């Protein structure tokens, strides 16, 4: 032992403060899981025009453009969900041309540079566009997930949604930051 050596002095002064005991009970949700849960919950708070579904039993289709991980988790989370008699079906798209009859379209962050053109291509269809890139709603997306001060939230561009015939519940609007 060698007291003189600075290396050999261990400071435990802050032990009590530093480390909280951790237990195995906690499970936190990942960002993608939370996003998936929102995607699966949106249909409860969205009204699509009548012609949006081919029949009264046809499923609610959530399209995921270029985000494999989110598509997988959404499939899992929405697996057994039924909303007013409609099942949730998750379809993964590799490019915009594959997008056809979906009710919700999640646009992956890889499209952040040409968002406006993508959104305008489907603006004539009643598709709720959801994204996660910064300023998604400013670029005419309808719902944009956001993170402010590490807190989860989302923006809504209600004007654009209305133009496509999509009605968003006031409950959802109250939660969001409204972007015009």
């Amino acid at each position, binding site marked *: 032992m060698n007291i003189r050596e600075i290396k050999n002095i261990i400071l435990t002064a802050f032990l009590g403060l530093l480390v909280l005991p*951790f237990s195995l009970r906690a499970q*936190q949700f990942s960002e993608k899981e939370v996003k998936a849960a929102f995607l699966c919950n949106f249909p409860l708070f969205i009204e699509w025009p009548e012609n949006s579904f081919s029949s009264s039993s046809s499923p609610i289709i959530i399209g995921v453009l270029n985000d494999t991980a989110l598509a997988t988790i959404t499939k899992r989370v929405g697996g057994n969900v039924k909303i007013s008699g409609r099942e949730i079906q998750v379809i993964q798209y590799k490019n915009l041309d594959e997008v056809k009859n979906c009710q919700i379209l999640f646009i992956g962050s890889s499209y952040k540079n040409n968002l406006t053109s993508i959104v305008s291509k489907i603006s004539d269809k009643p598709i709720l566009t959801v994204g996660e890139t910064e300023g998604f709603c400013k670029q005419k997306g309808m719902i944009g997930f956001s993170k402010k001060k590490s807190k989860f939230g989302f923006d809504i561009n209600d004007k654009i949604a209305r133009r496509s015939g999509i009605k968003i519940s006031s409950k959802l609007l109250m939660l969001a930051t409204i972007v015009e």
Partner: protein
Amino acid sequence: MRLFYRKILFFTSGIFLFSGIFSTLFAQDKTTKQIFQKAQGVFENRSYNEALRLFRELDSIQPNDSYTNFFLGLCYLNTKTDYSKAIQSLSFTIKNIDSTEKEIILRANLNLGKAYQLTNRFDEAISTYNKITANKLSDSTDAGNVKGEIEKCLYAKQLIKKPVNATIRNLGPQINSAFTDYGPLITADEAILMFTSMRSGNVGGNKDVYGQNEQYIEDIYVSQKNDSNFWLPPKNIGPPINTESYDATVALSVDGEKLFLCRGGSGGIFVSDKDGINWTEPKKLNKNINSGNSETSVSLSSDGRVLYFTSSRKGGFGGKDIYKSELQPNGEWGPAENLGKTVNTSFDEESPFIHPDNKILYFSSLGHKGMGGFDVFKTEKVNNQWTEPENLGYPINTSADDIHFILSAKGLVGYYASNRPGGFGEEDIYEITFPMANIPLTMVRGTVITEGKKKQNVKIKIIDKETNEQIKNVYTPNSETGKYLMIFPPGKNYQMLVDAEGYLPFVFDLYIPNQTFFYSLYQTIYLKPITMFNEPIGQGVSIENSFSNPQDSGLSESEQRSRDILLLSMVQKIIENSDTARLGEIENIPIDKKDYTPLNNLIEKIIDFTDSTALGHLEKITSQGFIEKANSNIFFYGENKKTGVEPFSVGNDTIYIIPPSVSPSPGQNPSPDAEKIKPITEKIDEIDIKTVLNKSVPFEFGMQTFSTQYADTLLKIAELLKKFPKMKVEINGHTDNVGSEKNNQILSEIRAQNLARFFTENGVEKSKIYFFGKGETQPIMTNETNEGRAANRRADIRITETIVKQSVVH
């Protein structure tokens, strides 16, 4: 390296004796005679692909020749190109060749049996082998082989009837080449795959003239997994690992920071350490490991203390045996110890792999009861004894060589090499997925981040709190990335001693939960020097622990399902109640996966009232053990003071630590009678830390320094500290929530620092001052009003005194 322990799969030994033979059919024809002689020469050089081409050419010119068919059969087998054609050709030879060609008939039958065996036609294989015995075709050596092969066929039939539940997948052309690919190694986080290959692109570019099929001298290649879980194209790891000679993977430490390799020539086992992103020059292990005989594979236990290895040295049970060596206090490997006759046989044992649980040893063997070729076995250490090795079964094992088995820490994925039929040529690397694994290990992955320094020299020692022994060799986080990885058995308490160059060592508790499934913990250790007027005066340490993302947590399907349902219903409730408070917290809501009810009720309450009181209640519960994220910033002076240190014993060493000076229970009433402490006499019963004084100093908006009007009060506090040697001061800087979190954190640290400096300038010893920056995390009033924000911009001063209760010993 491959050459040393390559089992001769086919009965080609002795084939060279036939170099003089040629079919009389060719005697009259110059062209066919030339081709036949050339083909035989190529065959003898074991360039079976080229030999196959030549014999096929010959077969097209002059079909139905028994000799040509004999060689064709062997070529089909050795190139793995067509087993049914091999069977066809060899059968033709056996049927049509002159009965005086005894040697050829024997070889043809042996190889025909092998071809049947490899294609799982065991009954035909057995009858072929039986024919050899019945017709007394073989000498005694081959008779022994034949008997062994029949036993293997019978056992294979048995194993195939009861396949084990595992999925085998060839790693595909992304990893495997037309050449020999073997020796897979994987880091415990399954992000990096290393392996040995005889493909082109090796260092030096030389071909392996001693091996078969004109492959290249083996080198080590490395591949990384991309985000979508695909292996990226492998790259040659280059020098100093790869040389112009043979370089082969044999083992990787669990943190991926130590690579063991086998080198050709007068080589043996070498080890290289990772220095940042580079590998250091490999060093040869000492003579306890490298005896000068054939040492070809090793495996390092996850605690780094035991090395298992194979050696053909004298004193074993025959062939290569598995030995172990323990790490000595001087850092060298100790004397080798044979694992004994339960594990080792008179045949070769090869490629041991000790699982990170340090209990189960996997290895390949030619001697234990198997299906043919090398099979993979496992043995478990129970009461310090190895259990009878158990064959991993079909489809993991086949009649071909199955070797170099490794298993992920979670026990879900294994990798190994095999030369079974199919694949991309020669040996290929395969992946095994096990359906159910229940390995209750905890994997700690972490990063040390040192501010302002690129290279860092950090050591992490783990102390077992029960035995108070340093349980491991020292973990060294990667000097470039600061990353480290450790694996622990469940249900134990440890202390982690982090020793970074230029910083004081510090220690903290590490509790490994007593879970029953595989568990991941992620840590970040931040080290930050504190400077005042460019002079280093102290250090900052902060630690963040967070638990695995759910994909990693090993939840069962039903557990996952109930988790998803909970999340869905929580999100629904949040939207229904437009609850912005919950929205912001959603990711961090802790849940008890066994029982969600209390938490659900609480969340419902919060949603119902949408008030901060309930939210506070939730936070309180979570801080009692639900929430896993601890984040605190600690600052202290780094003066080398000897006064007031206390002994702290670790194993045989006694180190001196500074005793706690911050009370674990704040909020006690100030004690005015500090001067009443009696001097310490004999026996110390209890040490108590009391809060003497609490004082808050306000700061103007954005200001780093306090207003001069408080100087008088602060001077008085300084006097108090000087007067009473047992008193210490703790300063916590705070801000309001205006501006970014990061800037507020810095501002709060500067506020605390400035007060600390005021005290030192007024004669208070540095060692009595502790200061902390809390940023905007601890408001005492709402940040919604001007008044509230003003109250939150503050530094809290707390004077504590250590009271020692003692009893006088008579």
